[in-house]
């Protein structure tokens, strides 16, 4: 059963369409990625899922319980929003309160029972590895800690769905990995996660489903594997030795059954007609011609590549 359903959702600003006819289902337990270029409309889509924005047309429905009917967010916003945790692009807590004070403040305002709140705070401090910093002013935390605190604040009332807008933006690789790991753990604890991001690698890493938004349209959505299927063509990436004869290598590869060769400077991406023939032919060439290559990688196309392919169409 879909926890969140977007039915023919359209959003216009001053009669200019920003999003058109979006139909998405977010299931309980999903880690749902909304990906798209800057300005594609993904934040608008996210804001409509959280209820910040009302759709110009269509509806956003929340299935609050198994038996009951789905609730229209525009009608039951006050009831539904208790089930939503939202982590916006920027930090969303009081910098002049300590980590613990922020968590207690929002927990109390969500009317979490006192005992539960104490446990929640403790668990979240441990979960986000902020326990040691619990008495520090939020303003004095590092950027990674702040992002973790923001997520902790969003989870303090144990929402069913956590919506994050660019959670890894402006973070270095280690911090990105840290946040993604945190989200995966949260998901394992039963929280449905919706992420809007343009860090496609990150999205691919943790999401089971994605919706690709391009120019106000959801180009495709669903399980990542299903999205990849039409684009599922393996390729071979050859990394040349610096100073090696690239033209000679290209000439030899063209003798093989290849569909396309993409020259990326230091690397050549070879799209074979038949992967096995091409790989064995390549290995034979290396042996016969005594070609010296730095690396050769055989892999499936990434979400990023698929996204690039889609957006270039």
């Amino acid at each position: 059963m879909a926890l969140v359903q977007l039915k023919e959702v359209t959003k216009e600003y001053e009669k200019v369409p920003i999003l058109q006819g979006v139909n998405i289902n977010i299931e309980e337990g999903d880690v749902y990625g909304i990906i798209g270029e800057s300005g594609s409309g993904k934040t608008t889509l996210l804001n409509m899922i959280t209820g910040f924005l009302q759709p110009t047309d269509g509806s956003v429905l929340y299935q609050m319980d198994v038996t009951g009917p789905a609730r229209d967010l525009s009608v039951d916003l006050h009831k539904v929003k208790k089930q939503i945790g939202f982590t916006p692009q920027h930090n969303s807590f009081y910098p002049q309160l300590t980590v613990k004070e922020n968590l207690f403040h929002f927990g109390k305002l969500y009317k979490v029972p006192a005992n539960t709140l104490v446990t929640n705070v403790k668990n979240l401090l441990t979960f986000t590895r902020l326990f040691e910093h619990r008495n520090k002013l939020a303003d004095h935390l590092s950027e990674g800690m702040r992002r973790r605190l923001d997520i902790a604040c969003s989870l303090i009332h144990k929402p069913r769905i956590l919506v994050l807008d660019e959670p890894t933006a402006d973070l270095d690789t280690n911090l990105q990995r840290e946040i993604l790991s945190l989200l995966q753990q949260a998901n394992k604890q039963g929280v449905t996660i919706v992420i809007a991001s343009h860090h496609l690698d990150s999205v691919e890493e943790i999401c089971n489903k994605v919706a690709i938004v391009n120019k106000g349209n959801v180009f495709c959505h669903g399980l990542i594997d299903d999205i990849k299927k039409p684009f599922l063509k393996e390729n071979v990436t050859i990394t040349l030795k610096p100073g090696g004869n690239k033209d000679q290598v290209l000439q030899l590869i063209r003798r093989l059954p290849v569909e396309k060769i993409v020259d990326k400077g230091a690397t050549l991406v070879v799209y074979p007609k038949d992967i096995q023939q091409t790989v064995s032919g390549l290995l034979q060439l290396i042996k016969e011609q005594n070609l010296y290559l730095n690396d050769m990688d055989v892999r499936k196309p990434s979400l990023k590549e698929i996204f690039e392919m889609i957006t270039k169409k």
Partner: protein
Amino acid sequence: MRALLLLTLKNLKLLVRAKASALIVVFAPLLIILILGLSYNTSAPYGLNIGVYSTSFTADVESFITTLQHDEFKIIKYDSMDKCVNDIKLGFIHTCISVPESLAIESNVQKEIVFHLDPSKINLVYMIQETLKSKFNLKAQQLSQDLTQNILTQLSTAKTTIGDKKGLLQTAKDKNTAVSSQTDTIVSTLSSLDLGVSESTYDLAVISDTGSKVSTALDKVREAKTAFEGLNVSSGDTAVLTAALDEAESKLKSANNFINGTDAGTIRSLVAILEADLTSLKSKLTSASTALGTASTDLGTAKGSLNEGVTAIDDVLSSLNTLQTNLESQKVTDASTISAPLITKIEKVGPEGTYLNYMFPALLVLVVMFTSLLLGTTLVMMEKNSPAFLRNYFLPLNKVTFIMATYLTTVLLMVTQIFIILGVSIFFLKDSVGSLPYMILILLLASSVFTFLGMGLGYLFRSEETGVLASISLGSIMLFLSGVILPLESVSPLLRSITFFNPFVLAEKLIREVFIFHTAWSGLWVDLLTLFGYMVVLFLVILIAETLLHKHLVHRFLKHHHRLHRENDKKDTGKV
């Protein structure tokens, strides 16, 4: 309620943790009231530097300067008017007074004392004018008193002279009256004189008849004698008869001569003389009669004149009497009273106190107004611009809770401030302890109004700087139109009528009435209700504004952060 307390507590924590805010909230009012207390807890006169210019510093001018120096004005003498005026411009002195070298009034020309003031120091101008006016009035009164005394002395002399000379006039009048009366008697006497001559008493025909008869008798005698002679009568008889007839004839002849003769001594001549005399007398009597008539007429005229004189004397006497009565009825004979019948004496309707007593209500409301306005604006701005603003959207709380939390935070801080201010003020204003509870209530009401005004500005403006600027501007406008800086009486009637609804004016009036005059609540309810009405209306306005603006604010907030991230994206080339 719990949420309200939580939000309030959070607001307080945020304010206190910002060191500047803590300083403003706790120490600023303490500092303000301490400074004001130390500055104005005095009843000493204003420290004014006064320049005095005169062509010559005579005794009069020096006496004038001495009068001013009694009030601890610092007097600087100038021998050049230009230098004196220039020093006003440079701020060395507050006013320049041009004094004539002599203040004595010797003709109907008034002496002129010229003030030179810097009109740009508008608050000081009124003060200097008021302060010095009393001094000038005193001096003018002294001069006026001298002049009046002089007039009074003259009047007194006139009164005495009138008293003295009135007896003489009365004597003159009496004499005139007596003369008039005598004239009447004379006229009457003269009128009774009969100077007419009766003509019948002088009938000369009788004399002629007598003469004729005597002549006839004489003739008869003669005829008798003739006849006698013809008769033969004895000689003896004849002789006797003849002798008798002769004698008769002689006597008749004599009588006839006496009567009809023309000689002097005859009756006729006597009668003629008498007649002539009578004619003469008659003529004289006629003249006398004419003279008498003229005299009578003249006497009548004289009497009339005398009567007029008496009437005039009566008038003069009456006027003198009236004058004397008037002069005597003039009870005010003291020159100082006449020269200054109305003495300007300022009776303070409240208890005597220092400047702080009188300034305290305005200062108190001033502090409350600015602090409430600024706190209201700052707290709304803090919340609006806080990173947590978006998260609050998801909280299961009513908008009223947020508004009330902001209000409650301000009120709590204001209560703290009011207690600090009033606590410190007790040190300076010991007699006002009784009115403090009422003042606290009024201040809380005023604080609520100003807080809502400040909050309204907080919602209206985008950045904290402009919001705070707007709060200060609004406070300044209310202060300017309150009569604290400039008297309200100097503004246009329309604006003046509007200013009576200025919350600052209402609050200041209420505090003044409670603090200085100890007015009962029953006399304050209209203003209290007005203030309360403001509070309710402003709360509703803010509630509506918040409801209308909240979504807009959230969108603006989202847009702002989204734009920032897009800018970051552009810098990050490794991303999609």
